[in-house]
């Protein structure tokens, strides 16, 4: 069981650079053949400055950033961990070459009865800011921990 005092806890800032090779690798992995993720020419015809970025590309930032920090600090048993829900709010465009920084905060903790007993729901939020100080993305992740 996780102590309620974790609500409000903030984690150190993490930084990510948006790279073309990673976009192509990610698009291939999700099986999305849309040429805007592979070819700058194709993306240019759709109005992008370089490659477009798949909507769930920020998963990469979440896993290496906030999620790693939260799981490490709370000593959550991975075998009891489930991903309950995920939300992305796209505030401003994220572009190839951007360097974005995000700080994760735990914003809620509550429990709910489930099929296999009471489960803890931990909600973490990360807001990402680009190199110009513009907020670009809000990431809200709900983890479910079976007791």
């Amino acid at each position, binding site marked *: 069981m996780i102590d309620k005092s974790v609500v409000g806890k903030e984690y150190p800032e993490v930084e990510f650079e948006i790279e073309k090779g990673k976009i192509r690798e990610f698009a291939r992995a999700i099986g999305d053949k849309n040429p805007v993720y592979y070819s700058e020419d194709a993306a240019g015809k759709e109005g992008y400055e370089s490659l477009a970025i798949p909507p769930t590309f920020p998963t990469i930032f979440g896993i290496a950033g906030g999620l790693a920090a939260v799981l490490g600090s709370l000593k959550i048993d991975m075998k009891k961990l489930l991903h*309950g829900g995920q939300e992305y*709010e796209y505030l401003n465009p994220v572009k190839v070459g951007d360097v974005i920084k995000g700080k994760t905060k735990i914003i809620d903790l509550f429990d709910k009865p489930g099929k296999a007993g009471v489960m803890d729901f931990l909600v973490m939020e990360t807001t990402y800011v680009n190199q110009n100080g513009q907020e670009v993305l809000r990431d809200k992740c709900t983890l479910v921990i079976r007791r």
Partner: protein
Amino acid sequence: MAQKEVYFEDVKVGYEIPEVVKDPITETQLVMYAGASGDFNPIHTVHAFGEKAGFGGVIGHGMLSMAFAGQIMTDWVGAKALKKLSVQFRAVTKPKDVITIKGTVSKKYTEDGKNFVDCDLIAIKQNGDKIIVGQATAVLPAK
């Protein structure tokens, strides 16, 4: 292949977004997704670990399912039109599963001079089981 522009005026509440049927999930895809995303939880890639966890083998990444859900929106209106994407996970996927994503426009509105559509999304397996339910918001151009 330029994407066909979808105009706000042409979209009605209740409109069914063209569905996306993904290729069957493969174990290789889960390895690729682990590498691409950085999610190396062995439950997705190591068969013996998945068996020990009670799944009889590996299971797909939840965020891979969410990526599928995102594709119905990007195929329809493009990545840059998307303002919000959220999902709740309902069931796990396994290799060989064929995932279909369906979506319906639930609301249309104009705010600060921009035209928005809210959509309800659902991803189902070949047997009809829901793997995720979700919502998306996109901004559309007017004619």
